[in-house]
């Protein structure tokens, strides 16, 4: 309690500080390269970010189950947006405008790469079949259903009349389940691994489908239907290939030059290469998300174990911290946009869209799992889990950002479509986000008692050898071949480790364990 009072005093001080900076006269501008203007912008941004981190901290200390921190951040953003609306400062207005470019260029790759990096690979590849079916067919169903449905309703006069193409755009932008929001919520709850991996995998892979759908609706007519299909496969496999290849090149470089001598150089290389695949794919027009995800997986499978201990420690914290900050910024901006955005509301259209979301998701999920359960008795997906998967179809940051694409302005009803998508993002975020925990309780699916996001940040990645143990022979063959390929050189193998190295590593892991025990002891783990 005492610390709370102290903190609130501190917050008041900070607010005064910010207010003080607003009052400074704007004379004497641009003395050197950075005028006070940019500094002020950045200052305010950093202060906002600071408070949002504090919000996360308090939410996770208070232990409110049904309120994931992402929702709390959105609320915080809404409050900020309301404040912004009533101030007439140009600087603040400038800050509060959401910049979709920056999101796609800097925030998204960090989040996706981290997801791939910390993924449980065994679980993912074991469930690759249902994941890809959900991601491809489910998304297509959702796209077609929503698109044609909205068009039909408009045609029938029940909703706002839109053209066929507009309807399909609405469908394509909003058909993909968002990885960021979904991940944030499920990670926080630490749900059952099967459920987690299904939802996660679907939300990552359906990005490629969504982008293809969006592009093809804008570019192609109905007669050229085969083009997008070819394009889709080119895109998917191209992205996966580039994602994997860049990291293997990195592995080569690290191994060839024995860079482990200098951990800093190693860290720099890893940071550079984790972004490079995303940007290569984006500049080629492929799906950067898929590439970043698979390079994350490859990194943790082949490169991570060859790194020096310091680099391991640094990058695992770096990635998690980076992803955490990126998510925080995204949710904050989703919140800020709500009060200051100009909405063109058409109630029936929104209602129909939401209804189609729910129905199309049900249509794609339940039959898929019904068939899969019949065919494959190994991994049985219970009805409870199916329900949660159905429920967790959140639309989030990616739909939100695609929504600001200039292409939408071209259409007569573009602004209505924009509003519909934005509102559906908010509604799904609030309803599904806050409803997931009660639903999990209701269905008696195992969850953790407390928020886990912040704690998961400091666990080391300790790679376990059995990751690929139960995989199909096809993947295992490739895996073995790759390892063989990389270990053929006479330089000490990076990808395979010798006995001595292994012993040392175990020993060090013990050390880390000891330290974390110690810090638990000091800081008190409940």
């Amino acid at each position: 309690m005492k610390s709370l009072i102290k903190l609130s005093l501190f917050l008041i001080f900070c607010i005064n500080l910010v207010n003080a900076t607003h009052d400074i006269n704007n004379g004497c501008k641009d003395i050197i390269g950075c005028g006070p203007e940019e500094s002020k912008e950045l200052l305010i941004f950093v202060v906002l970010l600071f408070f949002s981190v504090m919000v996360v901290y308090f939410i996770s200390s208070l232990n409110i189950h049904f309120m994931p921190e992402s929702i709390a951040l959105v609320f915080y953003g809404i409050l900020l947006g309301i404040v912004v609306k009533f101030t007439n400062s140009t600087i603040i207005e400038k800050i509060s405008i959401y910049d979709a470019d920056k999101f796609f260029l800097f925030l998204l790759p960090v989040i996706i790469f981290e997801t791939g990096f910390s993924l449980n690979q065994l679980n993912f590849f074991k469930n690759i079949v249902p994941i890809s079916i959900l991601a491809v067919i489910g998304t297509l169903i959702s796209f077609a259903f929503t698109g044609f449905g909205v068009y039909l309703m408009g045609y029938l006069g029940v909703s706002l009349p839109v053209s066929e193409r507009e309807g399909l755009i609405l469908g394509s932008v909003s058909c993909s389940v968002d990885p960021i929001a979904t991940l944030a919520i499920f990670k926080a709850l630490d749900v059952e691994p099967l459920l987690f991996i299904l939802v996660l995998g679907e939300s990552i892979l359906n990005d490629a489908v969504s982008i293809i759908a969006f592009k093809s609706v804008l570019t192609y007519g109905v007669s050229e239907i085969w083009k997008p299909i070819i394009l889709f496969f080119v895109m998917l496999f191209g992205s996966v290939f580039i994602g994997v290849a860049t990291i293997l090149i990195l592995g080569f470089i690290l191994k060839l030059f024995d860079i482990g001598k200098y951990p800093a150089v190693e860290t720099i290389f890893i940071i550079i290469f984790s972004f490079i695949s995303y940007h290569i794919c984006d500049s080629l027009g492929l799906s950067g998300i898929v590439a970043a995800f698979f390079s994350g997986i490859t990194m943790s499978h082949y490169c991570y174990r060859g790194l020096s201990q310091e680099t391991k420690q640094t990058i695992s914290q770096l990635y998690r911290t980076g992803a955490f900050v990126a998510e925080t910024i995204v949710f904050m901006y989703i919140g800020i946009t709500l009060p200051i955005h100009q909405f063109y509301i058409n109630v029936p259209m929104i209602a129909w869209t939401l209804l189609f979301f729910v129905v199309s998701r049900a249509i794609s999920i339940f039959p898929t799992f019904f068939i899969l359960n019949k065919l494959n008795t190994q991994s049985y997906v219970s009805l409870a889990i199916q329900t949660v998967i159905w429920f967790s179809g959140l639309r989030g940051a990616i739909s939100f950002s695609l929504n600001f694409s200039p292409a939408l302005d071209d259409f007569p009803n573009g602004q209505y479509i924009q509003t519909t998508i934005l509102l559906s993002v908010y509604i799904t975020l609030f309803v599904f986000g806050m409803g997931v925990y009660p639903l999990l309780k209701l269905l008696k699916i195992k969850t953790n008692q407390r928020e886990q996001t912040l704690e998961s940040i400091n666990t080391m990645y300790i790679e376990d050898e059995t990751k690929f143990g139960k995989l199909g022979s096809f993947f295992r063959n490739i895996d073995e071949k790759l390892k063989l390929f990389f270990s053929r050189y006479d330089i000490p193998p990076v990808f395979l480790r010798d006995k001595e190295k292994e012993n040392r590593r175990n020993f060090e892991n013990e050390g880390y364990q000891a330290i974390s025990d110690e810090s638990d002891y000091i800081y008190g783990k409940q």
Partner: protein
Amino acid sequence: MKNSSLKWIATIVLLVLAITAAVSCSPSSVATTTKTKEAGDDEIKIHIPNFVGIGKVNTDKTGSSSNGESASNSNSNSNSNSNSNSNSATNNNNSGGALANQQDASIIIFMILMILTGAVMIVYFMVSIHIPFIPESIAIVVYGVILGLIFRFSHSDIVSHVATFDPEKFFLFILPTIIFETGFSLPKTDFFKHISGILMLAIFGTFITFIVVGLGIFGVGHTGLSIYLPLRDSLSFGAIISSTDPVCTLAIFQALNVDPTLYMLVLGESILNDATSIMLYRTVTSVGPFTAKMIFYNIALFFLVAIGSVGLGIGMALLLSLLLKWINIGKFPALETIFMIMFSYMSYVLANALDISGVLAVFFCGITFNQYGAYSLSPYTKLTSNQLFRTAAFICETCVFIYIGMTFSFHDFTFNADLFTWSIFFICLSRAMSVFPICFILNKFLKDKISIQIQIAIWFAGLRGAFAFSLGLDYESDYAKIIRTSTILMVIFTIFVFGIGTYPLLKILGIKTSSSDQSLDNINKPLNKKSKAKDRSQLYQSVDDKYFKPWFRKKVPPLATEAIEIFEKLVQSSKDMEMGSVYDFDDDDDYKNNDSFSINNNNNSEFEIGVMDDDDDIPTSSSSSSSKAKSSESKSLINQKSTFSSSSSHSKK
């Protein structure tokens, strides 16, 4: 060795080729300048056949609208070509392009990453082949020059985007990172021991340089020996060129691991004289005639700014320390890292927003945080933050040097041989006029004298770097082109001549240096370098012990500190096992002392203990007996835990 260097050369050549290929293949950007827009649109349709779809429909609209705005911006700021990206991003309101510019931006980022990879490889290569007299910063500048030449002959907008140095980005992002890291890893005792010398050099030395260069250039122009520059422009040139640069100086001196007195004087001067330089620059470029009143006003303002920035930096760091102490963030190491970054950055940005010196603020923020806040961090963050900051600073420095090189070959020169020769002459002269008299005066008053060798080395270490470079690009006047050119030439000249010459000079003068390049090794040294000098002023010491440390440091149970130490040693020993051939520690005692996280000079507080004494032959702290007792006590505590007993027994081996 030969084999590996061949391998390296092959790789670098391949890399350069790859970049060249990327340059020649890369399509022109859609939304850069209004002039090339039409051509750019055509090209993009040819180059990217199917995928571009999204942009195609609407590029013209948004492209032209944002172009109009960014062009109007860039008219006023003639050199801000490269921030049209950020401009258009901010100018685009809600209708702004999510995907239209994204591909181009991705290409730009991709190319920057590739260039950076090449630079890092070159650094690694330079370090591996052990050429002590070529600092890696110079190698990177050469690399930048080569890249710039390649880029110059490819007429692509994206490439010019990549290759244009943006002073704004430098001041907003790169500079604070480097300076904070410097402050954070500074040996505080050494620094404060030489504070008087540093201040004298930074304030009066810079002022003398400014006057001599400014008036000298003006006088030479007036008498017809060189091109004529008006008084104001000459003085501005003097102000721009007057500050020695921390980035370049640091890179070279850190790499050589020189004598601490020399290092501290040069480093401290180069950081603190930025404030002087900026003040001089502002005074000179401000509109209105020079009057006595205004000069007096500016002197007062200077001191206000200096004290204000230092106060702000210290205040920010203390706030952060309090925050870390009060709130139990130790549970979440990620939050700690975020807070550290945010607060140090806030001090910089806030200082700039308040129109005072951000460099000073962030530097003192780093120092203060290292003194107080760093002790409240959790073990995890202590281990990682160090490497994180150093890596970030390293990347930033590399970027700066690449851009210095690239701009050199990208720049449109208005070369004037007379001016060039005279400015070199005046720079050397002015530095001599500032260093030797000031050191003479200092030697009169100080106990430990600055030897003539060190004076010569300080005189020689007057590198101009990124700071002068950015100020020069920022300058605007009728004679701006000439001044810009000569600034860039000065920067390149001083970096090459002084940078390459430093090592031979130090050898000739007989000043101690390390034999190999150290900049990469430095990165993984532990957090608190314990300085060799221990005598600090008694008053500050007692106040610090009595009030500040208990107030601002968290009371960490001794076990945690012990755990970190053990772990540190463990990692270190395992690393030695692995690469004993690479590390060549000539100074073993020093290395052992280095890896303690705790404060072991004169601590009376009960919750701090000294280093583990089991492999320390010389007791390092005055209260070593008590700390020994404590550490043995805590050792017995540790031994109760099975994991620790195994690890500590290992470290004894």
